């Protein structure tokens, strides 16, 4: 009963993740590919929940689905005239890359299955007990994460925040519409016009 439950949960999550990913690479419509990312991200969040990483699951949903995915949908909508679904969506490399990917999966898969893990990797386990990260704080608590982020991992944390700031400034600079000379001239003309004309043009 217990095993069936776990296998079902795993099966649903794996199906959502991998099925979504297959659709992402195979669907012709780019906006559908973006929508199919939803089951992938949600499935990964489900895996985090299954693996007792509640905080990471929340972050996955918040950032991947709530921010990145919406951003991607925005980008697709703004560039929607760029690609029609009639032409080929992949370049000529599809078959060789598919073969290379199969080789990669085989190599990584055999490595994982043959590696001598501390506990055998292909057996069913009872729940591995979680323990305290520091006395009194469970490893799954958010406070434990905050504690390490601000002590042991302070430098990476600060670098990440600087990176975010840089990315924000960079994205704004890149995405801002450049003012063409004509538009600037138009604004200047409006500003130079007499007040009553300006009022009219502002309406």
């Amino acid at each position, binding site marked *: 009963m217990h095993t069936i439950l*776990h*296998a079902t949960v*795993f099966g649903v*999550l794996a199906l959502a*993740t*991998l099925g979504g*990913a*297959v659709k*992402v*690479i195979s669907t012709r419509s*780019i906006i559908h590919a*973006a929508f199919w*990312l939803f089951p*992938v991200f949600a499935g*990964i969040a489900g*895996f985090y929940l299954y*693996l007792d*990483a509640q905080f*990471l699951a929340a*972050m*996955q949903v918040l*950032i991947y689905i709530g*921010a*990145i995915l919406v*951003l*991607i949908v925005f*980008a697709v909508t*703004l560039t929607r005239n*760029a*690609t029609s679904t009639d032409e*080929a969506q*992949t370049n000529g490399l*599809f078959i060789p*890359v*598919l073969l290379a990917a199969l080789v*990669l*999966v085989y190599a*990584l898969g055999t490595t*994982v299955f043959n590696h001598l893990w501390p*506990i055998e*990797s*292909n057996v069913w*386990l009872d729940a*591995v007990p*979680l*323990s*305290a990260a520091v006395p009194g704080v469970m*490893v799954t608590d958010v406070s434990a*994460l905050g504690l390490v982020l601000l002590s042991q*991992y302070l430098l990476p*944390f600060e670098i*990440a925040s600087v*990176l*975010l700031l840089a*990315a*924000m400034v*960079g*994205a*704004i600079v*890149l995405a801002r519409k450049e003012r063409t000379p004509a538009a600037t001239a138009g604004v200047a003309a409006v500003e130079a016009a007499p007040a009553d004309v300006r009022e009219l043009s502002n309406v």
Partner: protein
Amino acid sequence: MVPFAWIILVSILLFALGAIALITRRNAVAALMGVELMLNAANLNFVAAWRYYYPDHLDAQVAVLLVITIAAAEAAVGLAIILNLYRRFGTVDLDQIRLMRG
């Protein structure tokens, strides 16, 4: 819990699918989606290894958190670049955008 290797297998397949999307898709946004798939696969690996083998360490969760942060930054900058490309070339087809100078 399900065997460790099962979860790693999902992660490997996800990584491979992401790589395929990144290399073969002509649309730049779709290539970016491939990158996101690969990052997710790596994150899943971290969390699984943490849960099964090092349940008393927090390093994996911190790593995943940083990866998610960087993914957000990457998506923002990447999509801004794609929008700029679209404005300049009228296309987001990676095979057609070959000029290094505008």
